[in-house]
């Protein structure tokens, strides 16, 4: 036997590595994902991602800004920014209106503060069959911390998973490792939204709860990560099974991740 191992030592080494990787995965399934050497890898990759994105942006801006539309481009950018801000304000107002309708004490309501956010550009996007993440061009240098909420004016994008000085990795809503506390905007039913790669699933919703297709799910603020009242996803399918105490609810994120270019990171 030892002779056989010595003769095929390379083959045994590869087999050993495969076994080691398999063991590593099984350990993480039990105890959660490891995050070792995440920062050096993120550092190197974001450095090159920055260069690539800068190159693309520069080429694009030469074409659009200087050659074709000198003034219109700047104006367009300004108006887009204003629309984004107004959309965000509108989302906040809607929530406030619902709060008021239910005669809650307005003074106790901790509203959202759009000023306490950092605008960041998406420099990398990876939506593979295993995970859904993006890289943004802002990091701890401007006050971003792990587990901060990342949003757009349309709704929630995800949360910060790893932070470097000049960039951060964001885990998207659809990633299987993502969970957030939400409630149905219409009737305030609560649940936990989990990422399912192509969409999300609303978990732990009672069989008797009134959930309908088209219902908007908003953050409940109970997870301590996302501010209350942000649009998250729309219910697309509701299934009730007699044998289960819970409903099976499928929801689609309101933000289209494939078109994502800029995000806001909420400061805690």
């Amino acid at each position, binding site marked *: 036997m030892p002779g056989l191992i010595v003769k095929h030592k390379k083959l045994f080494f590869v087999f050993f590595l495969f076994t080691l990787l398999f063991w590593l995965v099984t350990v993480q399934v039990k105890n959660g994902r490891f995050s070792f050497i995440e920062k050096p890898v993120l550092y190197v990759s974001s450095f090159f991602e920055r260069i690539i994105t800068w190159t693309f942006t520069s080429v694009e801006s030469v074409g659009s800004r200087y050659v074709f539309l000198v003034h219109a481009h700047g104006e367009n950018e300004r108006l887009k920014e204003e629309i984004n801000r107004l959309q965000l304000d509108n989302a906040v107002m809607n929530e406030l209106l619902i709060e008021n309708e239910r005669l809650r004490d307005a003074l106790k309501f901790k509203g959202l503060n759009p000023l306490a956010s950092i605008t960041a550009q998406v420099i990398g996007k990876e939506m593979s069959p295993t995970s859904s993440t993006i*890289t943004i061009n802002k990091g701890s240098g401007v006050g971003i911390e792990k587990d901060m909420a990342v949003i757009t004016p349309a709704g929630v994008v995800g949360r910060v998973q790893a932070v470097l000085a000049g960039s951060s990795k964001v885990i998207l809503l659809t990633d299987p490792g993502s969970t957030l506390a939400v409630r149905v905007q219409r009737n305030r039913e609560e649940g936990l939204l989990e990422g399912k*790669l192509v969409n999300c699933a609303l978990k732990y919703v009672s069989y008797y709860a009134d959930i309908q297709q088209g219902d908007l799910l908003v953050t409940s603020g109970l997870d301590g990560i996302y501010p209350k009242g942000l649009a998250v996803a729309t219910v697309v399918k509701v299934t009730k099974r007699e044998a289960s105490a819970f409903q099976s609810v499928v929801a689609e994120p309101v933000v289209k991740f*494939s078109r994502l270019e800029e995000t806001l990171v909420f400061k805690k």
Partner: protein
Amino acid sequence: MKPGIYLIVFLLIIPFQASLLNPLSIAGIKPDLALALLYVIGLITGPIEAALVGMGIGLILDIGSASFIGVAGFTRGLAGLSASLLGRKVLDISSPSSGIFLAAFSLVEDICIALFLQLCYGEIPFFSLLASRIIPRAIYTGALGVALLHLLAGRNVLAALKRRDVQKEL
């Protein structure tokens, strides 16, 4: 192949996949550059080297993503090993049939991972994932692989690398 080339591959694989391929994205689907590259490496090198490179690339992708560390390391290791074993049987590695093999590799790998995630998390919409991500990605990756092999074959890089590897083995 030279370790320096592998180092460059390891350093650049995430930024190239996450940023450089963005303009090629169709409805959020991008080809799997890492797998296409690994397939090419597998075709021109020995099985052990290809398996080790596959594990390395996979581990880097795992660390850079939000998935369990080791999943892609394991599957990419197997992909490298299989591509290398296949490379010994295939006479013309720059033929378009390589694209079909590569697409099949991508399809099998992603299906295995989706089933694994189904076991871990449950309720993963498998068929929806298959139709919206896995199959389009496999086709796209196959096409990228053909383009990559065609490019390398056109510049005689492939033949030179393979010749050197065969000489090394002899």
